[in-house]
């Protein structure tokens, strides 16, 4: 029997296999050079990038929770220009697709980011993080209101030829509503989920552990929430999905594919097992073989009744 075909085409974003790494957890890829054959990765969603360099939040920036972790990095990053001039040239030659995760506080900033990131060679897609607070509307996240979300996505899609991925926040009453809004606004792909908002208090000091008080919860703890949202959104829109949230191994990755994701993104798992993405690629291939599938596509959404 021939090996199953792992390649996936997500509305224009072509990946050699359906495994990418999640923004903020894998740096710019290079950081994992010692542990991973980077050329084998489907893609790398690089650290959230902003127009201007950002220092990020004070420490502690992370806290461990049952089967999960909280982070409040605060988008520390060197800014889009440094990324394009200094980092992109170093990672361009890897086989993986470079996906740039963009964060901003205003629609105008998103637009400017999209324009800047559409110039250089070597960027395969833009990922719009709409979980950021909308400074103009008093801090309510763009991703929590369909119209605001659509506005951001339009500002990006109208200013780039690259495939646009919109990354949804799970901290909403109805995620399908947001998904439909960004589909209409022209998003090519949807990625989900970003972190759940959470916090942890140190009962000895009687204070929140994170300097930022609240943070984003990731890791296996949130997987059931993520799988459910992928399952729901897959039925609400016609876009390919990149599923994430607590994927620790290939079995978890397959769970997301069955729920309706066309590809998966691996975040927190890289911390506990830096070689995990390679195991996941191999495991998906084995699973497909075992079930007699020729391509990834055959199992996408198979658990949807």
């Amino acid at each position: 029997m021939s090996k199953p075909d792992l390649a996936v085409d997500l509305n224009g974003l072509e990946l050699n296999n359906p495994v990418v790494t999640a923004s903020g957890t894998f740096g710019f890829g290079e950081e994992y050079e010692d542990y991973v054959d980077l050329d084998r990765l489907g893609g790398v969603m690089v650290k959230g990038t902003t127009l201007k360099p950002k220092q990020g939040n004070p420490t502690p920036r992370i806290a461990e929770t049952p089967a999960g972790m909280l982070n409040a990095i605060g988008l520390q990053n060197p800014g889009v220009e440094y990324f394009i001039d200094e980092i992109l040239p170093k990672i361009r030659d890897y086989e993986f697709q470079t996906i740039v995760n963009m964060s901003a506080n205003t629609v105008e900033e998103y637009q400017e980011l999209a324009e800047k990131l559409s110039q250089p060679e070597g960027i395969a897609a833009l990922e719009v993080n709409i979980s950021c607070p909308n400074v103009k509307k008093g801090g309510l996240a763009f991703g929590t209101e369909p119209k605001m979300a659509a506005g951001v996505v339009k500002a990006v899609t109208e200013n780039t030829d690259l495939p646009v991925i919109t990354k949804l926040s799970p901290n909403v009453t109805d995620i399908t509503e947001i998904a439909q809004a960004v589909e209409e606004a022209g998003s090519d792909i949807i990625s989900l989920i970003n972190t759940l908002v959470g916090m942890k208090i140190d009962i000895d000091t009687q204070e929140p552990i994170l300097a930022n008080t609240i943070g984003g919860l990731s890791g296996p703890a949130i997987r059931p929430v993520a799988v459910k949202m992928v399952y729901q959104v897959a039925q609400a829109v016609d876009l390919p999905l990149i599923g994430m949230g607590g994927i620790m191994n290939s079995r978890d990755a397959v769970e997301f594919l069955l729920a309706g994701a066309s590809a998966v993104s691996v975040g927190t798992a890289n911390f506990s097992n830096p070689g995990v993405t390679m195991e996941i690629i191999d495991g998906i291939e084995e699973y497909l073989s075992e079930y007699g599938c020729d391509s990834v596509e055959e199992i996408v959404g198979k658990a949807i009744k």
Partner: protein
Amino acid sequence: MSRQINGDILANERINESDYRLVLSLPEIIDEVKPGQFLHVKCGPGVDPLLRRPLSIHQCNRDKGEIVLLYRVFGRGTELLATREVGEELDIMGPLGNGFDLTELKEKILVVGGGIGSAPLMALIERLVKLNKEVTVLIGAQNKEQLLCQDELTDLPVDFKTATNDGSAGYEGYVTGLLEQELEANEYEQIFACGPTPMLKAMQPLVSKKNIEMQLSLEERMGCGTGACLSCVCKVKVENEEGFEYRKACTDGPVFKASEVIFDE
């Protein structure tokens, strides 16, 4: 180059009420190890706890390919580590971090350790002794039982002094008190230190007053250990608007020049 490998556990023994000595067989990485570096340890299988734990390389036996860790049982991760048995394998990433900068070593060197922070200093001291430096070591602890490295240091050609909070051995009080005495009594050209943040913070003005070059090994909560997640940052002085920049303890550190480190209030 750093790797993720499984090391055989050759020993994992309690050395006092709270501390353990863990010996790992790691011939694959032994030649790359420098004093001040650390391993990122998966204390047990499964997701509880989820993250690895950074533990300094305490000793490094190149001939045997063995790395020794010294750790204090603190929370869930180290508790679990203490239950691991000889014959089992331990999943580690390493060696990680920059280690102590030994490129411009002086002759008269002071090494200061507080609490479990003394762990990484042993490998450093052994190296300094090999290089025939004149080494004085100050080790502080809660009490006599928790004083680390006593036997090893007594056997080495170093000047070794201790401080305990309860006065059960050596100087009574913080090791920073002993340091103050020591800086009055003797001239040092270089200092290396590791210990709890309040100790390092207290050392900064004492030492800068004397204009002695000092390197500090810092502790921060770590996610990846590879420089990817930006959890482990420390404030370092730079000339920008804010007057500081965040640097990663895992890859830019954990050892920093004392003169550039900013400790928050």
